[in-house]
């Protein structure tokens, strides 16, 4: 059951990711990205990361992508025009891309050969309490540093967006 779900949602994620690149309209691409995020959330859930899955849903699939869609709607961006057709780009590009991906995955697999296999449902430390405890004890320094970084980014965005005051 777990394996079937894993395969189904990985397939959906990959299909949505491909669709994201292929689609010409920005809204279609954005919605495909939502599909990728949502299926990733379900993959996290299968791996036992309950909290991460919900955070992925709320923050990525929800908040961030809603802002994307909102901006696209606000700018009223139309469909992109297709460039000049280059048949050799398709005939050469797809085999080359497949070959490159194959080589990369072969190399990665060779590097991490010793790692133990993933058991779906084997990991149980993904509840909100566990994540919170880890964040505020073991990883407290990186956590705080990242929050300061985000704060700086927000302030920077506000300074850049603000109108010049004479």
């Amino acid at each position, binding site marked *: 059951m777990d394996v079937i779900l894993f395969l189904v949602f990985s397939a959906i994620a990959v299909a949505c990711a491909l669709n994201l690149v292929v689609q010409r309209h920005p*809204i279609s691409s954005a919605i495909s990205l939502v599909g990728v995020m949502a299926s990733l959330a379900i993959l996290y859930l299968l791996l036992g990361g309950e909290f991460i899955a919900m955070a992925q849903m709320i923050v990525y699939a929800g908040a961030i992508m809603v802002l994307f869609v909102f901006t696209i709607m606000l700018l009223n961006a139309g469909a992109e025009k297709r460039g000049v057709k280059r048949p050799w780009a398709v005939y050469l590009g797809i085999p080359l891309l497949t070959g490159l991906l194959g080589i990369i995955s072969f190399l990665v697999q060779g590097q991490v050969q010793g790692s133990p296999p993933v058991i779906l449902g084997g990991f149980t430390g993904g509840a909100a309490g566990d994540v919170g405890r880890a964040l505020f004890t073991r990883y407290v320094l990186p956590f705080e540093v990242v929050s300061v970084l985000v704060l700086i980014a927000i302030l920077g965005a506000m300074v850049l967006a603000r109108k010049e005051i004479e």
Partner: protein
Amino acid sequence: MNFFILTLIKTGILLFIFMTTLAYLQWIERKVLAHIQLRMGPTRVGPFGLLQPLADVIKLVTKEGMIPSHVNKVFYLLAPVIAVTLALTSISVIPFGPQVEIFGVTTYLQLTDLSMGILFLLALSTLGTYGIALAGWSSNNKYALLGGLRASAQLISYELPMALAIAAPLLLLNTLSLREMVEAQQGYYFGFIPKWTVFQVLPLQVVSFIIYMISGFAETNRIPFDLPEAENELVAGFHTEYASMKFASFFMAEYANMTTISFIAVLLFLGGWHPLWPAEYGSDYVAPLIFFFGAAILLFHGLNPARPKDKLFMPPFGIVFALVGVLFLIPALKPILIPIFWFTGKVGAILFLYIWIRGTLPRFRYDQLMNFTWKYLFPVSVVNLMLTGLVVALMS
């Protein structure tokens, strides 16, 4: 019994009841609004207009499902599906009552209890924005687009104070599971004041409740926050171009979202299925008394009819009410029905508040709406969360 069959049965029953409730919520809304405005409301279809929802459903199903030629077809058709599916999914984690035994089967009055129940509901409500935003955009109509833009901006803005207002009681209840949340609110102060979150004095939680309710109203696009479908400016907002069942899906999603907001309010702040005062002081007899009282009124008016048709319709309804009241007194059914009564009673009270406010308040202006959340509601909810956290840390 097999887990699978049990879940199927529970889903079927719950879906049937929920859909009927959604249909009748609209009848109740029309009736209550009508009486607020000194009108009669629907009276023609069936006794007291009770068959009006059925007639509306038949009307909407049989109408021509027109698709305008200028829309983006894929997203135009997808939007109502997204809206209604996400809105209806949220009932799957709502607990309606404690563990009960029916025909020898021990089960919870809940489809499933997620350890992240409340986060799941928040995720569904953020994703619900897509239905409205896509509907507005794909319609290719300036009014629909403006409605969709307003709706998404409003949902994003009010999501923040709502999440912060939910976080404050979570610090006290110390769980994210909806069932455990209600169980943590069991018991009474001094033997009679219920230990609901809303009655917490130290730290004060009424503020969180009020912030949650205000942002809940805004999240469901109801008056006074119904800018996305302001008739006098935007025709019908994001669903201007929708007809027949596609329109009905948006309607259903709006009512389902209203009930979800009420469910969360009851579970988080109002003690779920726990009664308002302890059973030793007779809270178990409230439900039968209400139904017997209703039955007595109906029978009285049936025997002294003001209109000729009352003689026909009032007594049967009175007898049904009396029978329902008797059901609450049967010892075998009591542990099931009493919690459900309190739960639905509280949810009903909040839904009534929704309708009452719709009949009372005018609509905000758009800049007022945004100023209100960013300049008042959001700072207040941040301070509220920090104070709650401080008090919880000091007391533990």
